[in-house]
Protein backbone atom coordinates (compact mmCIF):
# COMPACT_ATOMS: atom_id res chain seq x y z
CA UNK A 1 0.00 0.00 0.00
CA UNK A 2 1.30 3.43 -0.89
CA UNK A 3 -0.06 6.75 0.19
CA UNK A 4 -0.22 7.99 -3.37
CA UNK A 5 -3.60 8.75 -4.82
CA UNK A 6 -2.57 8.07 -8.39
CA UNK A 7 0.23 5.96 -9.70
CA UNK A 8 1.38 5.21 -13.26
CA UNK A 9 3.67 2.16 -13.55
CA UNK A 10 5.51 1.65 -16.85
CA UNK A 11 2.47 2.81 -18.77
CA UNK A 12 2.58 2.70 -22.55
CA UNK A 13 -0.08 3.76 -25.01
CA UNK A 14 -0.15 3.13 -28.73
CA UNK A 15 -2.73 3.48 -31.47
CA UNK A 16 -1.88 0.64 -33.82
CA UNK A 17 1.72 1.24 -34.89
CA UNK A 18 1.72 4.75 -33.52
CA UNK A 19 3.45 4.67 -30.16
CA UNK A 20 2.17 7.80 -28.42
CA UNK A 21 3.29 7.47 -24.81
CA UNK A 22 5.92 5.18 -23.34
CA UNK A 23 7.61 4.61 -20.05
CA UNK A 24 5.25 6.77 -18.03
CA UNK A 25 6.08 6.42 -14.34
CA UNK A 26 4.69 8.85 -11.84
CA UNK A 27 3.11 9.16 -8.43
CA UNK A 28 0.69 11.86 -7.39
CA UNK A 29 -0.52 12.65 -3.90
CA UNK A 30 -3.94 13.91 -2.99
CA UNK A 31 -4.18 17.67 -3.30
CA UNK A 32 -1.47 18.13 -5.91
CA UNK A 33 -2.11 20.46 -8.84
CA UNK A 34 -0.31 19.17 -11.89
CA UNK A 35 -0.01 21.18 -15.06
CA UNK A 36 1.08 19.48 -18.25
CA UNK A 37 2.69 21.05 -21.29
CA UNK A 38 4.20 19.65 -24.47
CA UNK A 39 4.18 20.11 -28.21
CA UNK A 40 0.99 19.51 -30.16
CA UNK A 41 0.33 15.84 -30.73
CA UNK A 42 2.74 14.63 -28.05
CA UNK A 43 0.03 12.82 -26.12
CA UNK A 44 -1.16 15.12 -23.32
CA UNK A 45 -4.83 14.58 -24.11
CA UNK A 46 -4.17 10.88 -24.45
CA UNK A 47 -2.68 10.85 -20.96
CA UNK A 48 -5.75 12.61 -19.61
CA UNK A 49 -8.10 10.25 -21.44
CA UNK A 50 -6.44 7.26 -19.83
CA UNK A 51 -7.00 8.85 -16.43
CA UNK A 52 -10.58 9.61 -17.42
CA UNK A 53 -11.26 6.12 -18.70
CA UNK A 54 -12.21 6.92 -22.31
CA UNK A 55 -8.92 5.40 -23.55
CA UNK A 56 -7.25 2.28 -22.21
CA UNK A 57 -3.49 2.00 -21.72
CA UNK A 58 -1.70 -0.63 -23.79
CA UNK A 59 0.85 -1.73 -21.19
CA UNK A 60 1.60 -1.12 -17.53
CA UNK A 61 -0.65 -0.19 -14.67
CA UNK A 62 -2.65 2.86 -13.64
CA UNK A 63 -3.75 2.90 -10.00
CA UNK A 64 -6.25 5.18 -8.33
CA UNK A 65 -6.18 4.77 -4.54
CA UNK A 66 -4.17 1.58 -5.06
CA UNK A 67 -6.87 0.04 -7.25
CA UNK A 68 -6.59 -0.40 -11.04
CA UNK A 69 -8.44 2.54 -12.53
CA UNK A 70 -11.89 1.73 -13.94
CA UNK A 71 -12.04 1.35 -17.70
CA UNK A 72 -14.87 3.80 -18.31
CA UNK A 73 -15.63 7.30 -17.03
CA UNK A 74 -17.30 7.46 -13.63
CA UNK A 75 -18.06 10.01 -10.94
CA UNK A 76 -14.66 9.59 -9.25
CA UNK A 77 -13.07 11.67 -11.99
CA UNK A 78 -14.48 15.00 -13.12
CA UNK A 79 -13.66 16.53 -16.49
CA UNK A 80 -13.76 19.92 -18.15
CA UNK A 81 -13.10 19.88 -21.88
CA UNK A 82 -12.18 22.87 -24.00
CA UNK A 83 -15.78 22.96 -25.25
CA UNK A 84 -19.03 21.01 -25.72
CA UNK A 85 -19.11 19.79 -22.17
CA UNK A 86 -22.34 21.43 -21.00
CA UNK A 87 -25.83 20.32 -22.01
CA UNK A 88 -27.36 22.86 -24.43
CA UNK A 89 -30.95 21.82 -23.72
CA UNK A 90 -30.79 22.50 -19.98
CA UNK A 91 -30.68 25.78 -18.13
CA UNK A 92 -27.57 26.62 -16.12
CA UNK A 93 -28.89 25.32 -12.81
CA UNK A 94 -30.45 22.25 -14.45
CA UNK A 95 -27.04 21.52 -15.95
CA UNK A 96 -25.62 21.23 -12.45
CA UNK A 97 -28.64 19.72 -10.71
CA UNK A 98 -28.79 16.88 -13.25
CA UNK A 99 -25.89 15.21 -11.42
CA UNK A 100 -28.12 14.94 -8.34
CA UNK A 101 -30.98 13.67 -10.47
CA UNK A 102 -28.79 10.91 -11.93
CA UNK A 103 -27.82 9.96 -8.40
CA UNK A 104 -31.24 9.64 -6.83
CA UNK A 105 -33.70 8.75 -9.58
CA UNK A 106 -33.69 5.77 -11.91
CA UNK A 107 -35.07 7.79 -14.81
CA UNK A 108 -32.68 10.62 -13.96
CA UNK A 109 -35.44 13.10 -13.18
CA UNK A 110 -36.61 14.41 -9.82
CA UNK A 111 -39.92 16.09 -9.05
CA UNK A 112 -41.36 18.36 -6.42
CA UNK A 113 -39.46 18.80 -3.20
CA UNK A 114 -36.55 16.57 -4.13
CA UNK A 115 -36.06 18.47 -7.38
CA UNK A 116 -36.07 21.69 -5.40
CA UNK A 117 -33.37 20.31 -3.11
CA UNK A 118 -31.24 19.37 -6.11
CA UNK A 119 -31.68 22.84 -7.59
CA UNK A 120 -30.76 24.44 -4.27
CA UNK A 121 -27.57 22.44 -4.08
CA UNK A 122 -26.82 23.37 -7.69
CA UNK A 123 -27.20 27.03 -6.76
CA UNK A 124 -24.60 26.58 -4.06
CA UNK A 125 -22.06 25.41 -6.61
CA UNK A 126 -23.06 28.08 -9.09
CA UNK A 127 -22.35 30.58 -6.36
CA UNK A 128 -18.91 29.01 -5.84
CA UNK A 129 -18.00 29.56 -9.50
CA UNK A 130 -19.66 32.98 -9.70
CA UNK A 131 -22.54 32.03 -11.98
CA UNK A 132 -25.49 32.43 -9.63
CA UNK A 133 -26.80 35.47 -11.52
CA UNK A 134 -27.06 33.44 -14.70
CA UNK A 135 -28.75 30.40 -13.22
CA UNK A 136 -31.87 30.64 -15.39
CA UNK A 137 -30.01 31.19 -18.64
CA UNK A 138 -29.25 28.58 -21.27
CA UNK A 139 -25.68 27.74 -22.32
CA UNK A 140 -26.03 29.49 -25.68
CA UNK A 141 -26.67 32.72 -23.79
CA UNK A 142 -23.37 32.42 -21.90
CA UNK A 143 -19.92 33.65 -22.90
CA UNK A 144 -17.11 31.12 -23.35
CA UNK A 145 -15.74 31.86 -19.89
CA UNK A 146 -19.15 31.46 -18.27
CA UNK A 147 -19.66 28.12 -20.04
CA UNK A 148 -16.37 26.89 -18.59
CA UNK A 149 -17.43 28.07 -15.13
CA UNK A 150 -20.58 26.06 -15.59
CA UNK A 151 -18.61 22.98 -16.64
CA UNK A 152 -16.48 23.34 -13.50
CA UNK A 153 -19.56 23.63 -11.28
CA UNK A 154 -20.97 20.48 -12.89
CA UNK A 155 -17.78 18.59 -12.15
CA UNK A 156 -17.55 19.79 -8.54
CA UNK A 157 -21.05 18.84 -7.40
CA UNK A 158 -19.98 15.16 -7.56
CA UNK A 159 -16.93 15.74 -5.30
CA UNK A 160 -14.57 13.89 -7.67
CA UNK A 161 -11.30 12.49 -6.35
CA UNK A 162 -9.53 13.96 -9.36
CA UNK A 163 -10.42 16.90 -11.59
CA UNK A 164 -9.15 16.71 -15.17
CA UNK A 165 -8.91 19.85 -17.29
CA UNK A 166 -7.94 19.63 -20.98
CA UNK A 167 -6.97 23.12 -22.13
CA UNK A 168 -10.04 24.49 -20.37
CA UNK A 169 -9.16 28.11 -21.04
CA UNK A 170 -7.51 27.68 -24.43
CA UNK A 171 -10.37 29.40 -26.25
CA UNK A 172 -10.76 32.32 -23.84
CA UNK A 173 -9.52 35.91 -23.97
CA UNK A 174 -6.40 36.62 -21.88
CA UNK A 175 -8.29 38.86 -19.42
CA UNK A 176 -10.96 36.28 -18.79
CA UNK A 177 -8.31 33.64 -18.49
CA UNK A 178 -6.79 35.49 -15.54
CA UNK A 179 -10.16 35.41 -13.76
CA UNK A 180 -10.48 31.72 -14.44
CA UNK A 181 -7.01 31.06 -13.01
CA UNK A 182 -8.00 32.75 -9.81
CA UNK A 183 -11.22 30.74 -9.68
CA UNK A 184 -9.47 27.42 -10.19
CA UNK A 185 -6.84 28.20 -7.56
CA UNK A 186 -9.53 29.21 -5.08
CA UNK A 187 -11.58 26.09 -5.68
CA UNK A 188 -8.49 23.89 -5.53
CA UNK A 189 -7.56 25.24 -2.13
CA UNK A 190 -11.04 25.34 -0.72
CA UNK A 191 -12.07 21.81 -1.72
CA UNK A 192 -8.62 20.16 -1.55
CA UNK A 193 -8.88 18.89 -5.09
CA UNK A 194 -6.33 16.90 -7.04
CA UNK A 195 -6.10 18.57 -10.42
CA UNK A 196 -4.50 17.56 -13.71
CA UNK A 197 -4.53 20.34 -16.24
CA UNK A 198 -3.25 20.36 -19.82
CA UNK A 199 -2.27 23.74 -21.16
CA UNK A 200 -0.59 25.22 -24.20
CA UNK A 201 0.51 28.21 -22.21
CA UNK A 202 3.73 27.56 -20.34
CA UNK A 203 3.25 30.62 -18.16
CA UNK A 204 -0.16 29.32 -17.13
CA UNK A 205 1.51 26.04 -16.23
CA UNK A 206 4.06 27.77 -14.04
CA UNK A 207 1.63 30.11 -12.39
CA UNK A 208 -1.11 27.61 -11.55
CA UNK A 209 0.28 24.27 -10.51
CA UNK A 210 2.30 22.81 -7.69
CA UNK A 211 4.03 20.58 -10.16
CA UNK A 212 4.76 20.95 -13.86
CA UNK A 213 5.18 18.06 -16.26
CA UNK A 214 6.64 18.36 -19.71
CA UNK A 215 5.79 15.65 -22.24
CA UNK A 216 8.37 15.05 -24.94
CA UNK A 217 10.14 12.36 -26.92
CA UNK A 218 13.54 11.35 -25.65
CA UNK A 219 14.42 9.36 -28.75
CA UNK A 220 13.73 10.20 -32.38
CA UNK A 221 13.82 8.01 -35.43
CA UNK A 222 13.77 10.40 -38.42
CA UNK A 223 12.61 7.59 -40.74
CA UNK A 224 9.81 6.36 -38.48
CA UNK A 225 8.47 9.19 -36.35
CA UNK A 226 5.92 6.90 -34.69
CA UNK A 227 8.47 4.41 -33.45
CA UNK A 228 9.13 6.16 -30.17
CA UNK A 229 6.60 7.73 -27.86
CA UNK A 230 6.64 10.70 -25.53
CA UNK A 231 7.33 10.45 -21.85
CA UNK A 232 7.49 12.88 -18.95
CA UNK A 233 10.83 14.62 -19.46
CA UNK A 234 10.53 17.29 -16.75
CA UNK A 235 8.79 16.89 -13.41
CA UNK A 236 9.32 20.06 -11.43
CA UNK A 237 7.85 21.40 -8.24
CA UNK A 238 6.73 24.73 -9.61
CA UNK A 239 7.18 26.81 -6.49
CA UNK A 240 10.94 26.30 -6.70
CA UNK A 241 11.38 26.92 -10.41
CA UNK A 242 13.81 29.56 -11.45
CA UNK A 243 14.07 31.59 -14.62
CA UNK A 244 16.72 29.30 -16.08
CA UNK A 245 14.55 26.20 -16.10
CA UNK A 246 11.59 28.20 -17.45
CA UNK A 247 13.83 29.28 -20.30
CA UNK A 248 15.10 25.76 -20.85
CA UNK A 249 11.57 24.35 -21.15
CA UNK A 250 10.42 27.16 -23.35
CA UNK A 251 13.38 26.60 -25.66
CA UNK A 252 12.65 22.90 -25.92
CA UNK A 253 8.99 23.60 -26.73
CA UNK A 254 9.65 26.27 -29.33
CA UNK A 255 12.35 24.14 -30.90
CA UNK A 256 9.73 21.52 -31.64
CA UNK A 257 7.25 24.09 -32.78
CA UNK A 258 9.76 25.21 -35.40
CA UNK A 259 10.67 21.74 -36.57
CA UNK A 260 7.05 20.52 -36.58
Amino acid at each position, binding site marked *: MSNYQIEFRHVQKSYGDNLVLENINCQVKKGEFITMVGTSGCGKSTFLKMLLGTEQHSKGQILLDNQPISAEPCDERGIVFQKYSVFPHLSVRENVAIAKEFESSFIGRLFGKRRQQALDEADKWLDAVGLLNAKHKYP*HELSGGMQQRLAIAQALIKHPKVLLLDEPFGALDPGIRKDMHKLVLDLWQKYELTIFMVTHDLEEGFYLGTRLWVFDKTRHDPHAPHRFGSTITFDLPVGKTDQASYQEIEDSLSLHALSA
Partner: protein
Amino acid sequence: MKRWINRTPNQSLAITLGIIPFLLIMALYQWGSEVRKAENPNDKLLPSVSEFQTAIDRLAFTPSKRTGEYLFWQDTKSSLQRLLIGVACAAFIGLMLGLITGAIPLIGANLNPIITAISLIPPMAVLPLLFIVFGLGELSKVMLIIVGITPFLIRDLYQRTKDIPSEQLVKAQTLGANSFQIIIRVLLPQILPRLLDALRLSLGTAWLFLIAAEAIAATDGLGYRIFLVRRYLSMDVILPYVVWITFLAFLLDWLLVKTSKAIFPWYHAAK
Protein backbone atom coordinates in the same frame (compact mmCIF):
# COMPACT_ATOMS: atom_id res chain seq x y z
CA MET B 1 -21.50 50.23 -58.16
CA LYS B 2 -21.30 47.33 -55.76
CA ARG B 3 -20.69 43.80 -56.97
CA TRP B 4 -23.81 41.77 -57.61
CA ILE B 5 -22.95 39.35 -54.82
CA ASN B 6 -23.01 42.26 -52.36
CA ARG B 7 -26.31 43.83 -53.42
CA THR B 8 -29.05 42.59 -51.11
CA PRO B 9 -32.72 43.61 -51.41
CA ASN B 10 -34.47 45.31 -48.50
CA GLN B 11 -37.60 43.65 -47.19
CA SER B 12 -40.18 45.26 -49.46
CA LEU B 13 -38.07 44.73 -52.56
CA ALA B 14 -37.52 41.11 -51.56
CA ILE B 15 -41.27 40.57 -51.24
CA THR B 16 -41.96 42.23 -54.58
CA LEU B 17 -39.27 40.19 -56.30
CA GLY B 18 -40.65 37.04 -54.73
CA ILE B 19 -44.23 37.72 -55.85
CA ILE B 20 -43.39 38.52 -59.47
CA PRO B 21 -43.05 34.87 -60.64
CA PHE B 22 -46.43 33.99 -59.12
CA LEU B 23 -48.12 36.92 -60.88
CA LEU B 24 -46.37 36.05 -64.13
CA ILE B 25 -47.64 32.47 -64.04
CA MET B 26 -51.19 33.65 -63.28
CA ALA B 27 -51.10 36.17 -66.08
CA LEU B 28 -49.67 33.62 -68.47
CA TYR B 29 -52.43 31.19 -67.56
CA GLN B 30 -55.13 33.80 -67.97
CA TRP B 31 -53.79 34.73 -71.37
CA GLY B 32 -53.49 31.10 -72.49
CA SER B 33 -56.98 30.32 -71.27
CA GLU B 34 -58.47 33.26 -73.17
CA VAL B 35 -56.65 32.36 -76.38
CA ARG B 36 -57.91 28.78 -76.26
CA LYS B 37 -61.46 29.79 -75.28
CA ALA B 38 -61.54 32.20 -78.22
CA GLU B 39 -60.77 29.31 -80.56
CA ASN B 40 -63.04 26.78 -78.89
CA PRO B 41 -65.50 27.88 -76.15
CA ASN B 42 -65.76 24.25 -74.91
CA ASP B 43 -62.05 23.85 -74.39
CA LYS B 44 -61.34 21.89 -71.15
CA LEU B 45 -57.59 22.13 -70.87
CA LEU B 46 -57.26 25.64 -69.44
CA PRO B 47 -60.56 26.48 -67.70
CA SER B 48 -61.46 30.09 -67.01
CA VAL B 49 -61.68 31.62 -63.55
CA SER B 50 -65.48 31.39 -63.50
CA GLU B 51 -65.31 27.68 -64.31
CA PHE B 52 -62.98 27.19 -61.34
CA GLN B 53 -65.47 29.06 -59.15
CA THR B 54 -68.30 26.81 -60.26
CA ALA B 55 -66.25 23.66 -59.64
CA ILE B 56 -65.08 24.79 -56.20
CA ASP B 57 -68.60 25.81 -55.27
CA ARG B 58 -69.99 22.45 -56.37
CA LEU B 59 -67.39 20.38 -54.45
CA ALA B 60 -66.75 22.48 -51.37
CA PHE B 61 -69.97 24.34 -50.63
CA THR B 62 -72.78 22.16 -52.02
CA PRO B 63 -73.64 18.80 -50.49
CA SER B 64 -73.10 15.91 -52.87
CA LYS B 65 -76.36 14.65 -54.37
CA ARG B 66 -75.38 11.05 -53.88
CA THR B 67 -74.04 11.05 -50.30
CA GLY B 68 -75.01 14.45 -48.88
CA GLU B 69 -71.34 15.13 -48.01
CA TYR B 70 -69.23 18.09 -48.97
CA LEU B 71 -66.79 16.15 -51.14
CA PHE B 72 -63.89 18.60 -50.96
CA TRP B 73 -63.84 18.69 -47.18
CA GLN B 74 -64.44 14.95 -46.92
CA ASP B 75 -61.47 14.35 -49.24
CA THR B 76 -59.32 16.74 -47.23
CA LYS B 77 -60.25 15.09 -43.94
CA SER B 78 -59.58 11.56 -45.19
CA SER B 79 -56.25 12.46 -46.73
CA LEU B 80 -54.99 14.47 -43.78
CA GLN B 81 -56.04 11.73 -41.41
CA ARG B 82 -54.10 9.09 -43.36
CA LEU B 83 -51.11 11.37 -43.74
CA LEU B 84 -50.94 12.39 -40.09
CA ILE B 85 -51.45 8.88 -38.71
CA GLY B 86 -48.80 7.52 -41.07
CA VAL B 87 -46.32 10.29 -40.32
CA ALA B 88 -46.93 10.04 -36.56
CA CYS B 89 -46.33 6.28 -36.54
CA ALA B 90 -43.22 6.67 -38.69
CA ALA B 91 -41.95 9.44 -36.40
CA PHE B 92 -42.40 7.26 -33.35
CA ILE B 93 -40.67 4.21 -34.86
CA GLY B 94 -37.96 6.38 -36.40
CA LEU B 95 -37.28 8.12 -33.10
CA MET B 96 -37.13 4.93 -31.07
CA LEU B 97 -34.94 2.97 -33.47
CA GLY B 98 -32.74 5.90 -34.51
CA LEU B 99 -32.08 6.82 -30.91
CA ILE B 100 -31.40 3.31 -29.66
CA THR B 101 -29.18 2.27 -32.58
CA GLY B 102 -27.27 5.55 -32.29
CA ALA B 103 -26.87 5.32 -28.53
CA ILE B 104 -26.06 1.63 -28.01
CA PRO B 105 -23.36 0.38 -30.41
CA LEU B 106 -24.26 -3.28 -29.86
CA ILE B 107 -27.85 -2.69 -30.95
CA GLY B 108 -26.61 -0.52 -33.81
CA ALA B 109 -24.36 -3.33 -35.05
CA ASN B 110 -27.31 -5.67 -34.75
CA LEU B 111 -29.93 -3.58 -36.56
CA ASN B 112 -28.16 -1.18 -38.91
CA PRO B 113 -27.50 -3.68 -41.74
CA ILE B 114 -31.12 -4.82 -41.87
CA ILE B 115 -32.36 -1.21 -41.67
CA THR B 116 -30.09 -0.27 -44.57
CA ALA B 117 -31.31 -3.26 -46.58
CA ILE B 118 -34.97 -2.43 -45.94
CA SER B 119 -34.43 1.22 -46.81
CA LEU B 120 -33.28 0.17 -50.29
CA ILE B 121 -36.59 -1.53 -51.13
CA PRO B 122 -38.66 0.80 -53.34
CA PRO B 123 -41.86 1.27 -51.28
CA MET B 124 -44.11 1.32 -54.36
CA ALA B 125 -42.87 -2.16 -55.23
CA VAL B 126 -44.30 -3.53 -51.99
CA LEU B 127 -47.62 -1.71 -52.36
CA PRO B 128 -49.36 -4.78 -53.85
CA LEU B 129 -48.03 -6.76 -50.92
CA LEU B 130 -49.49 -4.20 -48.50
CA PHE B 131 -52.86 -4.45 -50.24
CA ILE B 132 -52.76 -8.24 -49.95
CA VAL B 133 -51.72 -8.25 -46.30
CA PHE B 134 -53.65 -5.26 -44.96
CA GLY B 135 -56.58 -5.22 -47.38
CA LEU B 136 -57.77 -2.27 -49.44
CA GLY B 137 -58.89 -0.21 -46.42
CA GLU B 138 -57.28 2.63 -44.54
CA LEU B 139 -54.55 0.49 -43.02
CA SER B 140 -52.71 -0.28 -46.24
CA LYS B 141 -52.54 3.41 -47.20
CA VAL B 142 -51.19 4.36 -43.80
CA MET B 143 -48.75 1.46 -44.02
CA LEU B 144 -47.42 2.68 -47.36
CA ILE B 145 -46.57 6.04 -45.81
CA ILE B 146 -44.92 4.30 -42.86
CA VAL B 147 -42.94 1.96 -45.10
CA GLY B 148 -42.04 4.92 -47.30
CA ILE B 149 -40.54 7.30 -44.76
CA THR B 150 -39.57 5.31 -41.67
CA PRO B 151 -36.23 4.01 -43.00
CA PHE B 152 -35.14 7.56 -43.81
CA LEU B 153 -36.19 8.76 -40.36
CA ILE B 154 -34.36 5.93 -38.59
CA ARG B 155 -31.18 6.52 -40.51
CA ASP B 156 -31.29 10.28 -40.16
CA LEU B 157 -31.92 10.15 -36.41
CA TYR B 158 -29.26 7.50 -35.98
CA GLN B 159 -26.80 9.92 -37.54
CA ARG B 160 -28.08 12.88 -35.48
CA THR B 161 -27.66 10.83 -32.32
CA LYS B 162 -24.10 9.95 -33.33
CA ASP B 163 -23.41 13.62 -34.05
CA ILE B 164 -24.05 14.71 -30.48
CA PRO B 165 -20.59 15.61 -29.18
CA SER B 166 -19.06 12.68 -27.32
CA GLU B 167 -17.87 15.18 -24.72
CA GLN B 168 -21.45 15.39 -23.47
CA LEU B 169 -21.71 11.63 -23.09
CA VAL B 170 -18.44 11.50 -21.21
CA LYS B 171 -19.55 14.40 -19.05
CA ALA B 172 -22.81 12.66 -18.17
CA GLN B 173 -20.87 9.54 -17.18
CA THR B 174 -18.62 11.56 -14.90
CA LEU B 175 -21.80 12.90 -13.32
CA GLY B 176 -22.78 9.33 -12.52
CA ALA B 177 -25.35 8.62 -15.24
CA ASN B 178 -26.06 5.11 -16.49
CA SER B 179 -26.85 4.31 -20.13
CA PHE B 180 -30.60 4.59 -19.69
CA GLN B 181 -30.35 7.95 -17.96
CA ILE B 182 -28.05 9.26 -20.68
CA ILE B 183 -30.53 8.24 -23.36
CA ILE B 184 -33.49 9.74 -21.53
CA ARG B 185 -31.93 12.95 -20.25
CA VAL B 186 -29.10 13.80 -22.63
CA LEU B 187 -29.83 12.25 -26.02
CA LEU B 188 -33.63 12.17 -26.32
CA PRO B 189 -34.26 15.86 -25.56
CA GLN B 190 -31.61 16.87 -28.06
CA ILE B 191 -32.92 14.49 -30.74
CA LEU B 192 -36.52 15.74 -30.59
CA PRO B 193 -35.89 19.02 -32.45
CA ARG B 194 -33.87 17.06 -34.99
CA LEU B 195 -36.84 14.73 -35.39
CA LEU B 196 -38.96 17.72 -36.38
CA ASP B 197 -36.29 18.70 -38.93
CA ALA B 198 -36.32 15.19 -40.36
CA LEU B 199 -40.13 15.19 -40.51
CA ARG B 200 -40.09 18.37 -42.55
CA LEU B 201 -37.78 16.71 -45.03
CA SER B 202 -39.90 13.56 -45.25
CA LEU B 203 -43.32 15.23 -45.58
CA GLY B 204 -42.96 15.61 -49.33
CA THR B 205 -42.31 11.90 -49.67
CA ALA B 206 -45.24 11.14 -47.37
CA TRP B 207 -47.58 13.12 -49.66
CA LEU B 208 -46.22 11.26 -52.65
CA PHE B 209 -47.04 7.87 -51.17
CA LEU B 210 -50.41 9.05 -49.87
CA ILE B 211 -51.54 10.24 -53.29
CA ALA B 212 -50.17 7.14 -54.98
CA ALA B 213 -52.05 4.87 -52.58
CA GLU B 214 -55.26 6.88 -52.98
CA ALA B 215 -54.96 6.84 -56.74
CA ILE B 216 -54.77 3.08 -56.76
CA ALA B 217 -57.35 2.05 -54.16
CA ALA B 218 -59.61 4.43 -52.30
CA THR B 219 -63.15 5.74 -52.19
CA ASP B 220 -62.27 9.25 -51.12
CA GLY B 221 -59.26 11.48 -50.55
CA LEU B 222 -57.55 14.28 -52.42
CA GLY B 223 -55.48 11.91 -54.55
CA TYR B 224 -58.51 9.73 -55.25
CA ARG B 225 -60.53 12.71 -56.54
CA ILE B 226 -57.79 13.94 -58.85
CA PHE B 227 -57.36 10.57 -60.45
CA LEU B 228 -61.15 10.02 -60.65
CA VAL B 229 -61.93 13.24 -62.55
CA ARG B 230 -58.91 12.80 -64.79
CA ARG B 231 -61.12 10.58 -66.99
CA TYR B 232 -63.37 13.57 -67.76
CA LEU B 233 -60.42 15.91 -68.31
CA SER B 234 -61.82 18.01 -65.45
CA MET B 235 -59.01 20.49 -65.15
CA ASP B 236 -61.41 22.76 -63.28
CA VAL B 237 -61.26 20.27 -60.39
CA ILE B 238 -57.71 18.99 -60.73
CA LEU B 239 -55.96 22.36 -60.62
CA PRO B 240 -57.72 23.67 -57.46
CA TYR B 241 -57.01 20.34 -55.77
CA VAL B 242 -53.33 20.57 -56.66
CA VAL B 243 -53.16 24.12 -55.31
CA TRP B 244 -54.95 23.01 -52.14
CA ILE B 245 -52.56 20.08 -51.61
CA THR B 246 -49.64 22.42 -52.09
CA PHE B 247 -51.11 24.80 -49.55
CA LEU B 248 -51.66 21.99 -47.03
CA ALA B 249 -48.08 20.84 -47.50
CA PHE B 250 -46.88 24.39 -46.90
CA LEU B 251 -49.08 24.70 -43.82
CA LEU B 252 -47.75 21.49 -42.24
CA ASP B 253 -44.18 22.56 -42.86
CA TRP B 254 -44.87 25.95 -41.35
CA LEU B 255 -46.50 24.37 -38.31
CA LEU B 256 -43.47 22.14 -37.76
CA VAL B 257 -41.10 25.11 -37.89
CA LYS B 258 -43.25 27.15 -35.52
CA THR B 259 -43.63 24.25 -33.10
CA SER B 260 -39.94 23.56 -33.10
CA LYS B 261 -39.06 27.19 -32.43
CA ALA B 262 -41.62 27.41 -29.64
CA ILE B 263 -40.61 24.21 -27.83
CA PHE B 264 -36.87 24.13 -28.50
CA PRO B 265 -35.60 27.72 -28.50
CA TRP B 266 -32.15 26.58 -27.36
CA TYR B 267 -31.83 24.44 -30.50
CA HIS B 268 -32.55 27.30 -32.89
CA ALA B 269 -30.48 29.84 -30.98
CA ALA B 270 -27.41 27.63 -30.96
CA LYS B 271 -27.50 26.97 -34.71
